[in-house]
């Protein structure tokens, strides 16, 4: 079921020669990446290689020092209402879920649709319930996030992002904070999204998932994109030694 989709003529997300420093640390080195409509790009790499930073620059939770980021061909606004509007079009899912802890799941879902998209409350609630249904936590709608399991919280967080009808979704290690038995339920939701044609950038350590769902694997190390390829090719024959070493290192424990 994996197939390489050729990116459309206009990429949804495009980074051109992006650089970023944290003080003397050069976290993003000349990153260029484009993600086409409906494409699923998985970003992998060792801890500290800049994957989260890359993800966060795309909706400007982190600023960049040089280069360009285009969304649907339009440069990322610097601030204010335009930036907020753009962020509304790109869903983000965090490692630590970040559901608003003082609101019920349903209120989490409707806050931005009513506040930003100005949907009528009733319509926002109906859409929210449909989305919660889709990710399988509709029965938790009236609970506070703390009353949900980690897997349920993350599925609700995905639904919350979807409620904004985003053009693309960013996932920063969405299953890394989960107990192992809950990882599958979250990955299933993400697989469903990919099949429905959502444009996705996913940072993950779940290699089987990456192999199954992605159209392209991007390998980062030391702030650079070292190589990118279709998943079969990448996992079978990594071109760089660093990628080969990385794959070796994460496979090693499985052999024990």
């Amino acid at each position, binding site marked *: 079921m994996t197939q390489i989709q050729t990116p459309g003529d206009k990429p949804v997300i495009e980074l051109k020669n992006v650089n970023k420093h944290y003080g003397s640390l050069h976290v993003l080195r000349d990153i260029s990446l484009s993600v086409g409509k409906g494409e699923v790009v998985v970003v992998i790499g060792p*801890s500290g290689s800049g994957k*989260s930073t890359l993800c966060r620059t795309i*909706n400007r*939770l982190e600023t960049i020092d040089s280069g360009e980021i285009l969304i649907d061909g339009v440069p990322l606004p610097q601030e204010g*209402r335009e930036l*907020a*509007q*753009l*962020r*509304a*079009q*790109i*869903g*983000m899912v*965090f*490692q*630590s*879920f*970040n*559901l*608003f*802890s*003082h609101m019920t799941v349903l209120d989490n879902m409707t*806050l*931005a649709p009513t*506040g*930003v998209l100005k949907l009528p409350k009733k319509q926002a609630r109906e859409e929210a319930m449909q989305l919660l249904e889709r990710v399988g936590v509709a029965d938790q709608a009236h609970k*506070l*996030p*703390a*009353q*949900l399991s*980690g897997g349920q*919280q993350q599925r609700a*967080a995905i639904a*919350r*992002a979807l409620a*904004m009808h985003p053009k693309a979704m960013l996932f920063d*290690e969405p299953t*890394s*904070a989960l107990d192992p038995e809950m990882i599958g339920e979250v990955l299933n939701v993400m697989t469903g999204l990919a099949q429905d044609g959502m444009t996705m950038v996913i940072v993950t350590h779940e290699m089987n998932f990456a192999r199954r769902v992605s159209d392209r694997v991007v390998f980062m190390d030391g702030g650079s994109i070292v190589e990118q390829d279709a998943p079969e090719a990448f996992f079978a024959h990594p071109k760089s030694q660093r990628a080969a070493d990385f794959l070796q290192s994460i496979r090693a424990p499985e052999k024990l």
Partner: protein
Amino acid sequence: MSAPSIRERLYESPGPKTRRRIAAFTGVALILLGLLLFLIVRQFALQGQLQPRYWDFFLKGSTWRYLGAGLLSTLKAALTAAVIAIALGFLMMRGKLRRFRPVRWLCAALVEFTRGVPTLLLIYFFFLVIPRMGITIGAFWRITLPCAISASGIIAEAFRAGVNAVPVGQTEAGLSLGLSNLRVFYQIVFPQAIRFVIPSLISELVIVLKDTTFAYVVSYADLMQNAKVLITSHDSLVSVYLVVAVIYILINYGLNKLSDRMARGTKKPAEAGQAKRRPA
């Protein structure tokens, strides 16, 4: 949803031996306390402070009405001061979290000033200096404004600590949904911060209430001021002060109980199911 109290978290539950020892210590402490109380009362009795003439006017309704009027004035001043202090504290907190440097510095300076200057000095300022500037304000404001200003800096810091205690992921999630900074603050961060802040806010309220006893300086007829009048008219210092002290203690005890209850009733955001962190 009862979280274990701090005591339960710090100590393991006592075994039978420990429980016997606790009982013994409690007994000894109670006996000592009783002894102390007895000595105090005896000393007062020896000094003639327990004579009926020092106490019988408490049987008259007028005494209590008079103290009641004082108490009402105290509560009015304290409540007004608290509301103003919270408003000022909130503004200073907002200012200190601004990106625009001059505003930040100004608010930081205001916080330091209001925290550093003694309440009594502020009262003298409003009582003695402001009238010289040709501005006349009534006794109520002469006590209320200084008390409010004096508390505002501490409240600003309490608010700021509360805001900083809200995990940054909450802000990021809000921003990534396209919410404006203002919405993120008022709909996501502040409602969570307020839960951290309530206990220190109430402790500060107790201090405001105690500060209003400076009202005698500006001749505002608060509980303390009326107590003083009672003392002179009945020549009975000890009994009146004792009764008034008990009134203050009861009010503040009530406030602290309220704070405990509210702190327990609302879960802290950090405990409310943030994800377990695992190294990436």
